[in-house]
């Protein structure tokens, strides 16, 4: 790199994230705390061991509906209207969501209103009532969201690619359907709540201007201490099976842009290969100087959006590459996308390119914790996902140890596109090359 004149020497950046305080309440609820009196605000987030992947077969959407009805379906002490009105008058927010692998419940309040807002938050977690009218209206709302799920082809392509990759019946790939939503009853929601929202099944993180840590702990003990229940039990997730060989799925749609997605098998969570894979992704598709952006966007002008990333799963994660391009360049863009993945698996990256990727990750590590709350929420997340307590503290050193040979070894195992699934949404009549050039094509109707 030829640096501009006058640029100061670029030294390494080191940042040791503060620990925070970990405690367990008398009922088994785990708490991470960090006092931060910068502003008169308090944030809380709870990780609830639950997730869309644990929905019962035939009831996909149950976890998500449960989480949303916690917030909107009323509690023992607050009607839905009462809860909304009180929170909004305090300018506080309480939210509840369900991810694939985690339930979350969040609270933000000004310090002066913390006790009033926390009372609502705790009631929501412990004593939701699932008002029958609200249950009906939330199901209707979810059905409307389903009706609209293909309106944006870019987003639909990523969802459908993962669904095709894992199989429509596998919990990592499935989606809610009108029939599975209509099958959900109030009793299902109550059972889902009782099974998962239990103190022994929750890790809570809090940061902000809440007084001393002892004061905050006794406040939480006071709100949650009488709540009982141990860890949840789960049915095992069926093993992931990925067929060998290239698969191509095409969804016909007359859109202005073709959406092209490549999915490859990824990592089991906690596999130490994550470090070289992270560096490999930074090189391949991590930013605007990555290979994908450089070759497909900047040099050829074929795309505005092009990237890759890897996601970990308990069993088998994935790596995903995406590119949006005009229909008449879909073939060229697909070919280049595949070529760049193949190159990663074929040869070591240069020493300078590897160093650049490492620096980008290590030197920006500090941005994972822009606030005390972000930091303590990360600590809680890593405990939730079963990482060792010093995972964050060793992260930068583990990335720094990755060299070109490690990147190649990881790429050979995980980035070779021979077994990749390719999914394209677009108007095949306008493509510059038939998709069959890239493998046997399955046509799938948009639905």
């Amino acid at each position, binding site marked *: 790199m*030829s*640096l*501009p*004149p*006058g640029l*100061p020497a*670029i*030294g390494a950046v080191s*940042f040791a994230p503060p620990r925070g305080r970990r405690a367990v309440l008398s009922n088994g609820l785990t708490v991470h705390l960090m006092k931060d009196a910068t*502003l*008169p*605000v308090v944030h809380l987030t709870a990780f609830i061991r639950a997730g869309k992947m644990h929905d019962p077969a035939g009831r996909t959407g149950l976890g998500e509906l449960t989480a949303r009805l916690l917030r*909107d379906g009323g509690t023992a002490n607050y009607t839905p*209207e009462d809860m*909304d*009105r009180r929170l*909004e*008058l*305090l*300018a506080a927010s309480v939210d509840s969501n369900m991810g694939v692998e985690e339930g979350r419940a969040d609270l933000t309040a000004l310090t002066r209103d913390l006790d009033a807002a926390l009372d609502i938050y705790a009631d929501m977690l412990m004593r939701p009532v699932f008002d029958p009218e609200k249950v009906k209206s939330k199901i*209707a*709302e979810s059905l*409307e*969201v389903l009706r*609209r799920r293909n*309106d*944006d*082809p*870019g987003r639909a392509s990523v969802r459908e690619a993962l669904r095709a990759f894992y199989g429509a019946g596998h919990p990592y790939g499935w989606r809610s359907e009108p029939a599975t939503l209509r099958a959900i009853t109030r009793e299902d929601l109550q059972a889902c709540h009782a099974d998962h929202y239990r103190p022994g099944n929750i890790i809570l993180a809090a940061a902000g201007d809440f007084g001393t840590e002892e004061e905050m702990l006794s406040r939480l003990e006071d709100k949650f201490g009488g709540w009982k229940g141990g860890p949840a039990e789960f049915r095992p997730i069926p093993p992931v099976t990925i067929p060998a060989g290239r698969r191509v799925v095409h969804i016909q*749609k*007359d*859109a*202005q*842009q073709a959406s092209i997605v490549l999915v490859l098998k990824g990592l089991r969570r906690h596999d130490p290969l994550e470090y070289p894979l992270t560096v490999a992704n930074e090189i391949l598709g991590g930013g*605007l*100087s990555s290979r994908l*952006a*450089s070759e497909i966007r*900047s040099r*050829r*002008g*074929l*795309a*505005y*959006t092009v990237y890759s990333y890897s996601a970990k799963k308990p069993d088998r994660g994935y790596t995903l590459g995406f590119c*949006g391009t*005009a229909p008449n360049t879909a073939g060229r863009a697909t070919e280049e996308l595949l070529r760049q993945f193949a190159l990663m698996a074929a040869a070591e990256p240069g020493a300078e390119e590897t160093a*650049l990727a490492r*620096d*980008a990750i*290590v*030197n*920006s*590590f*500090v*941005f994972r*914790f*822009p*606030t*005390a709350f972000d930091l303590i929420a990360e600590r809680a997340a890593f405990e939730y996902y079963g990482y060792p307590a010093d995972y964050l503290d060793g992260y930068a050193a583990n990335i720094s140890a990755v060299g070109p040979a490690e990147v190649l070894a990881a790429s050979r195992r995980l980035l070779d596109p021979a077994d990749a699934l390719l999914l394209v949404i677009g108007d095949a009549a306008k493509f510059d090359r038939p998709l069959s050039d890239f493998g046997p094509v399955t046509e799938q109707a948009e639905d």
Partner: protein
Amino acid sequence: MPIPPQYPPVAARRLSNGLQVLVLEKKFVPTVSFALVFKAGNVDNTPGKTGLAHLFEHMAFKGTTSLNSAGYAAEKPALDRVEAAGQALIAEESSANPDPAAVEQLRAALDEAEAAADAFIVEDEYWKLYSTLGESGLNAMTSADYTAYVVSLPAPRLEAWMVIEADRFKNPVLREFYRERSVVMEERRMGESEPGRVLWEALLAKAFTAHPYRNPTIGWMEDIRRLSRTDAEEFYRTYYVPNNATLAVVGDVEPERVFALAEKHFSGWQARPLPSRERPVEPPQAGERRAEVIFKAQPSLRLGFHNPGPDHPDFYALMMACEVLSSGKTGRFYANLVEGRQLALYASAYTSFPGSRYPSLCVISAAPKAPHTTEQLDAALMEEIERLQAEPPAAWEMEKILNNYDAEMVKQLESNSGMAMSLAQNEQLLGDWRYDWQTGERLRAVTPAQVSAAAAKYFSRDNRTAVFLKEPAV
């Protein structure tokens, strides 16, 4: 109880060349966020060149006479040949009867000239330099009103930022222009695939007849196709001057050191007089306008009502009206139309779109829940508006809005990058970095009767543009 505005301790200094610098010192982690905002947006493009401000923004990542170049003296003639080839292609494509064979030949000539210029390029060096520094959120955004360049860095990189960005805006070289123009065309195509963006574009084009707020910031495709590097250089010379910019720096830095470094590195950047900012005045709307967009997606709608702009005292009563309608789950749209009658999936109101430098639109965005139609939803939205016109909002509704505004003022200080952006934007476009806090005071002064009066005056049928997304008939 009225609370006096609590301004954060922002230090301000104007450099000798006119560049305004704002610094807010904040410590938790050793990072610093930068926002450099130019009053140079889509409204500043000359007619027929929509999208130019945005395309220049892309070009500002392509390096300088030293960065991204293997030797500018040798590169320059090659870049000039690219530009000649680019302009020849534009001329043929824009002629009354373009000859397909000639277009093909000219396109091949452009490709060849670009390939020849590649020999002098150090690819993506600007991006790589920032990666090494440990950037987070390196980006830029263009709107109708402005262009902003943002990045966050570890705090010890303060001077590195000064060196790189001073060079970037003093000595830019717009290499790889025609390829980047293709990237922008793909960005436009991406927008053309998203029903929401298509509707917003249709609303602006219908509601404005004279003012450039009618144009999409990305540009019309036929305009983008005709933009040349020379156009972009002209735009740069006109608007990228220090007296047209504000820099905000927020994070673990000392204000005096920031001022000293800014003076050291940016003072060689020459101020120049700016052209007039007068734009065609939008004539008063005389009667409702309606349009349908046929698009393969579920139905939705956008409504627009001309607002008087933030300099007009009614503006703040109108802001309150929008908040009464759509703030939170107790807002009237959500409480009555999403819950309540259950005919909307979502419904929201916003006071000022697509910008604030000139009078713009108060907009409503909504989608029906089947089996309800856009027509039914439109009628229900207008009923809510009519009720607000007739009856002033309740005291608790006003109190809720003010409480939330005050809390937002506290919470926005949590994010260095968000704070940097809002300080720079308010200073450069609205004349004072304290604008958000002053707005809080203005909102507090609005009475319930003024809210209803503003709703009556601006949410009128004659002032209304309605755009509906419909699926094609099978």
